[in-house]
């Protein structure tokens, strides 16, 4: 319990910063909706007359920006990037920070098993991520309602979108943790999490534009793609399963690796 409290306290500030910046992202983006909607209604009519192959080729197939939820889907990708970096930061730093800051030997001399340490730390990170998500849910709902005009928001796809966030963050948390345990030493967390999140993001964004699925089925940006959720009113189940399996495997492997890890110490 002490470890949990301590860990949560160290995450508190970063949690608040992330929540507020994502809140700002949603607010700024949604406030542009009215202006955007006027421009797009014309575009949408024109695009409806295009052949499908063409829309695929120019990456416009799943675009439906004329509804507020479709528009929110655009912002949602950016929210995903931010939440992904937050989760990856927590994951990469979870146990490796103790070694970077030479506090691991102190921590491991406490009368708790490594398994317990790991569990408390994970719970603290999950709590912080969960609170961020709740904040984002509320902010999204509020601004969807404020800026919708007299449009009706379909309930189900919206909830599916919002409830995809925990699984999305779980992926980056666990994969980050696994990578940090696979390498000998993590010098600094940010480059790693930026590389992981933006690597997977570009892989999906670019891969999505053209052609068949290949590597991007490994990317959570593909598993929880907002345009898919909004269009088909459901999660892309096979892909969500891939993501979940990767997360659980990474989680199990992390416990195993941490249990037998050779800890670097100052002396």
């Amino acid at each position, binding site marked *: 319990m002490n470890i949990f409290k301590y860990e949560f306290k160290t995450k508190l500030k970063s949690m608040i910063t992330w929540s507020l*910046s994502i809140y700002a*992202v949603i607010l*700024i*983006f949604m406030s*542009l909706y009215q*202006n*955007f909607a006027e*421009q797009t209604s014309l575009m949408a009519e024109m695009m409806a007359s295009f*052949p499908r*192959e*063409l829309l695929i*080729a*120019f*990456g416009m197939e799943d675009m439906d920006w004329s509804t507020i939820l479709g528009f929110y889907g*655009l912002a949602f990708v*950016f929210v995903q*990037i*931010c939440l992904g*970096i937050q989760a990856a930061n927590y994951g990469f730093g979870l146990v490796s920070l103790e070694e970077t800051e030479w506090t691991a030997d102190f921590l491991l001399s406490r009368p708790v098993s490594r398994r317990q340490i790991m569990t408390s730390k994970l719970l603290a990170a999950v709590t912080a991520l969960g609170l961020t998500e709740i904040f984002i849910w509320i902010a999204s709902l509020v601004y969807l309602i404020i800026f919708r005009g007299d449009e009706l928001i379909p309930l189900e796809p919206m909830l599916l979108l919002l409830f995809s966030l925990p699984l999305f963050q779980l992926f980056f948390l666990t994969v980050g943790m696994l990578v940090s345990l696979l390498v000998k030493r993590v*010098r*600094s*967390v*940010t*480059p790693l999490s*930026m*590389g992981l999140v*933006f*690597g997977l993001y*570009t*892989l999906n*964004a*670019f*891969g999505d*534009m*053209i*052609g*068949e699925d*290949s*590597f*991007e089925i490994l990317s959570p940006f593909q598993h929880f793609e907002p345009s898919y959720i909004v269009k088909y009113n459901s999660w892309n189940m096979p892909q969500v399963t891939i993501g979940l399996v990767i997360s659980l495997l990474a989680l199990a492997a992390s416990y195993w690796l941490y249990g037998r890890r050779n800890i670097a110490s100052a002396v």
Partner: protein
Amino acid sequence: MNIFLRELRANFKSLLIWCGIVILFSVVGYSKFSAYYNNPELLAVVDAMPEAMIKAFDMDSFNLTTVTGFYGIMINYVALMLSIAAAMWGSDVVAKEERDRTVEFALTLPVRRSRLISAKLAAVFVNCMLLLFVSWATIIVMAQNYAPDTQFYNFVSTSLWAFFFMQMIFLALGIFLGAVLKQHKRAGSLAVSILLAAYFASILTEVSDKVSFLRYFTPFKYFDAQLMLREARLEGGFALLSLLIVAVALAGAYIAYSKRDLYI
């Protein structure tokens, strides 16, 4: 010179990883493109469209049946990756001495602080150039199967300049943050925030024309792919603006670091 070489060696692994990412990305991209290259159905569709409509939607420039059009789409993502790499290297190269508790040692060496910064700057600069070179080589080599024409080569070489400016902006900003911020830990996360904000701003400018002034605040929008493709040139004003940002950031870094109170 020793510091320079040491930094190069220290960053070598990270350089290799980034090269790997860029190469993997190109391989995936080109393999997908091969399905569209000279695809008869698509060509027929494009041919059947009225000239004016093609013009209106810029489809001649980003026509996915040609390698040039494909590169026009790819260009944004390459720019994003190169910028991230530059921002990470820049913010790390100065700040890491304090993080790894090696700053006292580094500063007891018989060189001035400004020399230290110069050597570190040179090392990360070389890294950025190597990464740029690898990206260029990958793009060109992989394009050979798809009958690249002179327009394609011009487009690629112009885009290299755009990449160069973006890299330099983020590199200089990173070094500036590393030298100025009292807490070395903040440098990396602030560099990330700036990059994210710039990327977000670049998305916003696409969504609404009300916020087109944001273009000046996001390097991702300084250089228009259309212009690079059509006229093989960059907008001079934005090139100057980039140089100005780089100059100010670097000057700030030198001044701040020479007075820096070390965190030990």
